[in-house]
């Protein structure tokens, strides 16, 4: 997962403090900005289906690139190796199956502690997301009783926020909770 030589814009991610600043900047700055931007584009756009969807897709792609996604890619790389989930899903999209040696290499890239930590973090993220989904759904449902117009406007935003959360929460939790990385002395 996170290693002592992980950096972002020249800043080492070995220190938990730096990682927490990154998470704070993401949730305190970037996500609200994206939500406002999404809502503005969605409301003001004459062609809602076109511009709004494009903006949402591009934003989510950018977010996953920024925090690294569940897989190994991205700038932050909270998870070093690809997950087994990808190995299961990949054949469904008719891409070539990874060879046995590639699978072994992927497994070796993350040791047992990191794998168990990754799985635990995803469980915690699921538990949080489950509650959040229920809250957002309740909010959406109540908005329908209260104000139909507000529901029409807020519905996509709630869905957007839920998507950001589902895609970024495991990485957020890893970056927040992993202790300071040690030197390999």
């Amino acid at each position, binding site marked *: 997962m996170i290693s002592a030589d992980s950096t972002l814009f020249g800043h080492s991610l070995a220190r938990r403090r730096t990682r927490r600043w990154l998470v704070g900047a993401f949730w305190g700055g970037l996500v609200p900005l994206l939500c406002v931007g999404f809502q503005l584009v969605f409301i003001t756009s004459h062609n809602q289906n076109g511009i709004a969807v494009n903006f949402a897709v591009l934003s989510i792609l950018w977010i996953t690139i920024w925090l690294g996604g569940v897989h190994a890619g991205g700038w932050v790389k909270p998870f070093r190796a690809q997950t087994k989930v990808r190995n299961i899903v990949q054949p469904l999209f008719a891409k070539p199956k990874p060879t046995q040696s590639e699978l072994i290499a992927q497994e070796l890239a993350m040791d047992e502690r990191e794998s168990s930590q990754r799985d635990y973090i995803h469980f915690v993220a699921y538990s949080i997301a489950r509650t959040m989904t229920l809250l957002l759904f309740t909010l959406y449902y109540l908005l329908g009783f209260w104000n139909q117009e507000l529901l029409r406007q807020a519905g996509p935003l709630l869905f957007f926020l839920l998507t950001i959360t589902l895609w970024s929460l495991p990485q957020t939790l890893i970056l927040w909770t992993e202790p300071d990385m*040690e030197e390999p002395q």
Partner: protein
Amino acid sequence: MNTTNPKPPGESGLYNRIAVLRAEQGISRQQLADAMDVNYQTIGFLERGEYCPSLKLALSLAEYFGLPVEAIFSKQPLQPLSQQVYGNQPTKASAQEETTS
């Protein structure tokens, strides 16, 4: 009771002698990690008792150090090896250390 690891064993609930054995053999965390095929940070987590290893990793460590598993890991605080092997009484230094900790 004098122990090599008087601190609580962290999240794992296991006491261990990995740090002592590693120091005794003069190897770094990285070297031990390479031998165990794990990340060096996992060795740090093990030494601090913050991670409970799998049976496979515990057996690999035992094999690497040439000791039985129960000599490396224990649910109870571990005695110093010298005291366990030779029945030595705690030295002044260890007794002083115990009182200060």
